[in-house]
Each structure stands twice: as C-alpha cells, then as structure tokens.
C-alpha cells in the first residue's frame, strides 16, 4: 500500500471531513443575508430621510435625534425592560415549577399539559379582547369579586397608567409559561434515570434532586428558554395592541409597537429604522455577554 491514497479518495475524504461545514455554511449564509444583511439595510435606512417608502439619500443621525426627542420612545424603552424582566423571570419560574410538578407521575399529564400549552395556540387578536374584559374593573375580576361580596376588592391595573404594564405581564405569562413548561419537561425527560436513582440514594429530597442535580443538567434548556422568552418579550406586539393598545395614553407602548407605528402608521420609516437599530444594539449589549458565558460553559 502506498503512502498517498488516490486523488479521488483524497477528495472524498476531504469532502467528508468538511461535511459539517458544508452543511452548516449554506444555512449560515442564509442567516447572514436575511438577518445581518437586513440589519445592515435597516441601519442604513435609519440614516436616510425615508418616509412612506425607503429612500437612499444619506442624511446622518437626524433620525436618531428625532427618536430621542420623542417622549414616547423613552416610555417604550423603559417598558421593554420592566416587561421583559418580569415576564422572563415569572414565565420561567412557572415553567420550571409546572414541569417539575408534572414530572411527578401525574395521571392526567397529557390533558394538563395540553391545558398549559393551549394559550400559545390562540391568537392574541381575540384573547386580547377576553383579557381586556377580564381585567377591566367594570367587567371582569373586580366586578366579580365585588358581586361575590368582597366590596373593597380592587384590581384596576388595566386602566391605571402606572400599572397597566403589569397586566401585559400577566397575559404574556399566561400565554407563554406553558411553553416554558414544555421546554423544561422535555429536558427533564431526557435526564438519565440512573442519575436520579443515585440522587435518591444520596438522600436528596425531590426538591433537592431537582435543584442540585437535574436543573444544572438542564442548563442548556435555560438558555433556550431565556432566548425564546426574550424573543417573545421583545416582539410582543399583538399582545400590546390587543390588550391595551399601548394605553392608557401610551403608557404601555413598547419598542415593537413603537416601531410598527412609525413604520407603517405614520410613514416614518427612518425613525422606525432608527428605533430598530437602537433596540438591536440594546439586545446585543445584553444578550451577547450571556451567550458568551453560556457557550463557554457548555464547551468546558
């Protein structure tokens, strides 16, 4: 046998070795074009006087000045932080809790799981209306409780500028925590059983088994969940439109609704692009360090 295999074989080997790259790269290229290409486009548009339709005359940072002079933008940005923070934490906590509870050999698991999941299936175009009724003091919970006899029961967040944002959290959690549950449940189910046995012998209570053995193994699931929930939080558009319409006033405005309003209602593409760029920069600043630490960790 010779030292050098035939060129054909060599080529095959080369292809085989490169296969992972060959598979990933086209998809990566798609993503480069459709994500980063479009981000670049947006960044450029944010520096033009685009209105109804995109125009390509460079104009500098005027749209950013305009953006930061708009009081509504501050409200939107602040809301984004309040809403995302609360939403992610609460939905994740509920997701974990329910996943763990469902993992306790619950008989009607399939049914309960579907009940927890179904809100995701419903479009907020309609459920928003229902939530609006439920949360409206004159129609929903408050009225119900008062009729039942709790005269002083007050739950008027929806119509209170300072609290309306929390009703968004309530409805958003309602919609998405079931999916967080599903993610964690799938994770729980792929943990090797022998490890659970070892923990049982080691004297860990159910609780302790989950907190110190299972959840650390599920670390990657946390990453998925955070990304998913952050995505939902950042893009929560239907929810805001349907539940509060951004109101009272624009107290519950969010960057997504802001951006949409400027791009498509007000024909101010430039401002919308500027706001999108700002938003992406904010997300980058937050998510990149998190990603970095997570990826480093999973690769040891």
């Amino acid at each position: 046998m010779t030292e050098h295999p035939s060129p054909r074989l060599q080529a095959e080997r080369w292809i085989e070795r490169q296969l992972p790259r060959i598979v990933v790269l086209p998809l990566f290229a798609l993503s480069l074009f459709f994500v980063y290409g479009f981000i670049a486009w947006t960044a450029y548009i944010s520096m033009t006087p685009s209105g109804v339709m995109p125009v390509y005359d460079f104009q500098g940072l005027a749209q950013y000045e305009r953006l930061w002079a708009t009081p509504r933008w501050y409200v939107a940005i602040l809301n984004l932080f309040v809403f995302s923070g609360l939403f992610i934490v609460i939905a994740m906590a509920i997701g974990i809790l329910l996943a763990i509870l469902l993992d306790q050999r619950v008989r009607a698991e399939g049914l309960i799981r579907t009940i927890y999941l179904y809100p995701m299936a419903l479009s907020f175009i309609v459920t928003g209306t229902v939530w609006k009724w439920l949360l409206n003091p004159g129609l929903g919970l408050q009225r119900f409780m008062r009729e039942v006899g709790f005269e002083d029961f007050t739950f008027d967040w929806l119509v209170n500028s300072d609290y309306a944002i929390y009703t968004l959290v309530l409805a958003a959690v309602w919609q998405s925590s079931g999916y967080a549950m599903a993610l964690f449940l799938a994770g729980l189910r792929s943990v090797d059983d022998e490890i659970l046995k070892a923990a049982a012998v080691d004297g860990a209570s159910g609780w302790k088994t989950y907190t110190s053995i299972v959840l650390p193994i599920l670390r990657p699931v946390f990453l998925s969940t955070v990304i998913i929930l952050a995505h939902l939080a950042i893009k929560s558009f239907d929810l805001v439109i349907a539940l509060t319409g951004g109101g009272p006033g624009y107290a519950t405005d969010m960057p997504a609704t802001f951006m949409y309003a400027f791009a498509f209602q007000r024909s101010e593409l430039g401002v919308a692009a500027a706001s999108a760029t700002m938003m992406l920069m904010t997300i980058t600043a937050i998510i990149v360090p998190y990603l970095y630490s997570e990826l480093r960790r999973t690769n040891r």
Partner: protein
Amino acid sequence: MASGIRLEKLRKSFGATEVIKGIDMEIEPGEFVVLVGPSGCGKSTLLNLIAGLETATGGAIRIGGKLVNDVPPRDRDIAMVFQSYALYPTKTVRDNITFGMQTRRIPKDNQQAALEEFSQLLQIDHLLDRKPGQLSGGQRQRVAMGRALVRKPEVFLFDEPLSNLDAKLRISMRTEIKKLHQRLGKTIVYVTHDQIEAMTLATRIAVMDNGHIRQFAPPADIYENPVDLFVAGFMGSPPMNMLPGVLCRNGAALAVQPKGTGLRFPLPRPLADRVTLQDGDQVVLGLRPESIFAAETELPGENRFVFEEAVEVVEPTGPDTMIVFDIGGTEMIARVRPEDARPEGTRFRFEVDMTKAKLFTPDTGQAM
C-alpha cells in the same frame, strides 16, 4: 448499631419477566454479604430493591427489623455504588462525592475531612476539580466508590465496585474495604464477579441463579461444600472439573469410573461412607483444577490417584500453568507449576488429590 436486612419471599417482575423469584434471606447486622451469580441473574435488581430504587412486586424487605417496602430510598440510610456509576455529569468530582453529605446537612468541616480521607484512599485527590466526562473508566468507578464511602450509613450496597480497576489497585481497595468494614461494622451487600474478592471479603456468600438463591454460606463452605453442581461449577476459577461416571466397587473401596474410560478414581473414606447409591449408578465426580497436578511434584499423601493423558492445551497464567486434557470426552483442567508444564500433544502423568473430590447426583445436581 448496624442494621440487619431481612428479605421475605421477595419478588420483582419487569412487566411479564419475573426477575427475582421469591427470595428469603436473613443478613445479620454487620455482616459482609457477597452476592455472586451469572450475568443477568438479578443481582443488581436485588440491590435496587434493598435500596428502594425498585418497588417490590411481592414479599417484604426489612432493614433493622423495620418493614421498609414503602420507605423511600433516602430514609433507608443506605449508600450504594452503581454498576453504571451514575455520576452527576455537571458536578465536579468533589461535589459528586460530597453531595450525599450536603443533603444530610453534615457540617462543612466534616465533609471536608471525609472527602480528603477517601479521595486519598481512592487515589483521586488530584482529580477533585474535574467533571466525570474528563475521567477514565477506572477513575469514574473510584469516584462512584468515594460517593458511597464518605457517608456512614447503616447499610452499604456495592455493585461490582472494582470491576474497572487494575489488579494492584483492586487489591488495595479490597483491603481498604475490609478494614472499613471492620472499623465501622456496617452491614454490606456486595456484588462481584471476582472470585478472590468474594472469598476474601465475605462473611457469607450468596450464590444466585436466575432469581433464586442457591446457597448462602461462609466462603469456605461455598468452596468446600457446594450444595449442588451449579454452585460448585460457579465458584472457582477455573471452575471445578465435572466428570460424569458410574460408581463401582474397586475391591473394598468405592471408585468412580468415568464414562468410556478404564480409569477408576477411588473415593476416599469419608466421602465413600456418605454414598448411598448402588454400584453402577450414575454420578458426577467434581475435581477442582488445583487438586490435579503433575505426578510426583507434590509431597506424597493419602488418597492420591495417578493417571496419564495427552496434553491438549497449555495455558500459562503466570504463577501457575493450566493444562487442558480430556477424559472420556469431558474437558478437564489441571493446575500445574509453570516448570512442570509440557508441550501440547505430549502424554502427561497427572496426580489427583482425591481427598478434595466431590460427588454429585447427576439428575438433581445435589451434592452427596
């Protein structure tokens, strides 16, 4: 202080397959019981049942006199080494080992002391900060050991805890386990396939077969007086030679004549006296390899029988050499000193120490 374990009519099925088929067993407090048996006979399942990791299908398990069928593992005060290690993949070796103590809220200092003690003993003290994925097979097994040892429970369950260690390490571990047992006096149930481990560690050995216990007795008894062919054949490595033959009177004495040969193995007195069978009845003669050796290489003794056969295979094992030969179609193994071995094909004079022979009835397999 240590707790005994009592199994009563214990049964376990997985779906339709019954794996433990009604086991009765009484383990005294502080005993060191070694479970041996063929692969798949139910040893791990039995340990799991004692640990509470599987729910018994029938029967009772008592630890320290208390019925524990419904007691969860963590309240049984046991420690276990799993055959599959079952290390926590995200925890460092250190945390794997101390986790059981953490859950029991043992003071940090004591944890540290125990960790140090056992990680040195197991020679894994330089690996404490690694994750299981970065360890070799034997290192993982030692971590699994450490996890069980650091706690001082009432009952230790070991499932082949040394199978992936080299001979040297295994011997030193064995010694440490023995010392630990003597020091702590805890009850230990230990599964192993290593003959020597079983013989040297056990106060009693339980030989399992297919969900039953065949014999439960001190090691010497198991080796010297196996109750049946199964136990006799299972304990001993290489295993006992089983030579089918017929009983025949050899003058005044009784002898066994292997089928298809003219050889007559004379039975020694005490054994012959126990034989209740008739002349011409079928028997199985059990001869351990170490009781067959090269003729005239040992000091002369009573009840020796010398015969000649052709060497079929020679297997040097280091301290001894095994010689495989054939008597009337039955493959036999003799253990000779390396210097006495002869090449394959040559005729060889074997000498048997018949005082160590065993006799079994072929149909029931019972020892006489």
